[in-house]
């Protein structure tokens, strides 16, 4: 049984034709199901509980990165309340390509391909990360010159120069393994060259694996899953939960 969760923006006029085509295609291949509209749901975990009681196994998100982020959080919260342990998640991307980085990393590039991928039902159990009291699936970005990080409560890392910090479970531009029970920390700091003026900076990469991380700077902003902003300080951990995803063959992962 499939449940399709539509984001509110899906109702916009420019998406109506695509939605009609998606629904037609899903019916043709025999995986159509009930539809829930995010706009009309007040309590997603409660709705999922109701559906789980009727034998729901597959939840398909129709929308973009922000839709996936919202649904992931609801399912993770539902799991902590032991509502259901067995949902498998699928994604049908809709909207701008730049806002669908998570689905494309999982090998789902457009709605037509997504329907075939749902039908093939190739699944992968993926780690999820936790930041304070919410969850993230893909990555967290911090742009800050003076960030100070505490890792696994064993050592601290301080940036001596400005740079970008990326905490990655999986990413569209860096291949990782989101099933290996750790998160990846990439720090891209800038190297100053004494004798060059034009392109006077070159990026310098650092890399760590970790399970627990604290940020200590109070002024930095975090961008979570390419869609949600949060202010530091933050406590970031690998969640004990894993979620099962329907993924495409051409995913940008090492698994």
């Amino acid at each position, binding site marked *: 049984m499939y449940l399709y969760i539509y984001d509110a923006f899906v109702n916009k006029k420019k998406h109506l034709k695509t939605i009609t085509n998606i629904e037609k295609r899903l019916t043709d291949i025999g995986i159509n199901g009930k539809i829930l509209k995010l706009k009309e749901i007040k309590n997603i975990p409660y709705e999922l509980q109701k559906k789980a009681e009727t034998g729901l196994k597959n939840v398909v998100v129709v929308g973009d990165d922000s839709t996936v982020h919202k649904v992931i959080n609801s399912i993770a919260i539902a799991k902590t309340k032991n509502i259901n342990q067995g949902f498998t998640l699928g994604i049908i991307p809709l909207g701008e390509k730049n806002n669908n980085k998570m689905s494309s990393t999982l090998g789902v590039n457009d709605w037509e391909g997504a329907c075939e991928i749902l039908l093939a039902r190739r699944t992968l159990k993926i780690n999820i990360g936790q930041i304070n009291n919410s969850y993230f699936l893909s990555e967290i970005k911090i742009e800050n010159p003076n960030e100070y990080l505490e890792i696994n409560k*064993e*050592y601290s*890392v301080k940036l001596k120069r400005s740079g970008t910090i990326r905490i990655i479970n999986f990413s569209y531009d860096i291949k990782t393994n989101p099933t290996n029970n750790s998160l990846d920390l990439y720090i891209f700091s800038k*190297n100053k060259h004494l004798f060059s003026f034009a392109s006077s900076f070159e990026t*310098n990469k*650092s890399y760590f*694996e970790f399970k627990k991380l604290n940020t200590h700077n109070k002024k930095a902003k975090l961008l979570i899953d390419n869609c949600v902003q949060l202010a530091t300080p933050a406590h970031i951990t690998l969640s004990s939960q894993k979620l099962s995803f329907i993924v495409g063959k051409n995913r940008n992962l090492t698994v």
Partner: protein
Amino acid sequence: MFKNNEAEETKKSAETIIGSGLKVKGNFQGKGNIIVEGEVVGSLKTDNYILIGDKAKITANIEAQTSRIGGVVEGNVTIDGHLEITASAKINGNIQCSSLSVEKGALLNGKCSMGQPAKKEVKQKENQGQS
């Protein structure tokens, strides 16, 4: 100086890379290869290979299976296997390893003991003796 291809290969297989723009403080313990181009204060341990780059500054005791040191190290270096010290290295501390190569120009202030059983083997023998 490290050969480019070799350095790239090590980077690809590294579990941890501490770049030149970073300062790491505390007890750093890994299982895979570690590359240090930045600054480390505390202790640095791995069951595998450690590469200390030319511009790295380490104020820590180092323990590893094998290592190549090209930067500044203030602390003791304990290597189970081979230790390679390159021309740019400055080490103030004692060295213990099974085999050693030192490039001309390297600076070494401290005791050097070689040919002794590596630390792990000594521990294993001690454990066997107890049981």
